[in-house]
């Protein structure tokens, strides 16, 4: 593993652990540039819960190395409480079952307690 790769993976790890909910996506929730990112971000916005996002198009190194972080090949990627949940399909399933809002609320509450 190159130094650069290690450094990027450490940066991703920090983002995932420091944010209760973080979405890696193409574009932004306001200006998504891919249908899958768009639908995923919309599902998160609709919960009314807070979440962080990383626009991987604005950070090509993150885009290049993110698939290796949890051995997940595609974007977007949703992390809640430090754990990979999945991509667009899984997020939409979680939104439909109500689990998404619940998990986001719990993760956000947990961070406030420790802050």
């Amino acid at each position, binding site marked *: 593993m190159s130094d650069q790769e290690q450094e990027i993976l450490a940066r991703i790890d920090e983002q995932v652990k420091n944010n209760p909910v973080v979405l890696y996506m193409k574009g932004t929730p306001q200006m998504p540039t891919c249908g*899958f990112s768009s639908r995923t971000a919309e599902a998160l916005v609709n919960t009314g819960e807070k979440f962080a996002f990383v626009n991987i198009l604005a950070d090509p190194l993150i885009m290049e190395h993110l*698939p290796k972080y949890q051995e*997940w*090949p*595609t974007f977007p990627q949703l992390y809640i409480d430090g754990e990979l949940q*999945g991509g*667009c*399909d*899984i997020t939409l399933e*979680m939104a439909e079952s109500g689990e998404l809002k619940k998990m986001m609320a719990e993760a956000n509450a947990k961070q406030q307690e420790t802050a």
Partner: protein
Amino acid sequence: MSPEKIRERIQAVLPDAQVVTSGEDCNFAVEVTSGQFEGKKPLQCHRMVNDIFKDELADGRLHALSIKTKTPG
């Protein structure tokens, strides 16, 4: 990749799988029904399907693979 090829590749790993595909070229949606998904989390099931197309997803032959996994019955 053709829908037939996608089905063959999945069934090589999950022989009992029922595979329904839609989409075209490098952008596919698959619905896979297999007993091997029983008791597994969605993330694990999707990982099993993603892994089959690991190389194609990495080099862009497949740009997007939309996955739905189900258990029979």
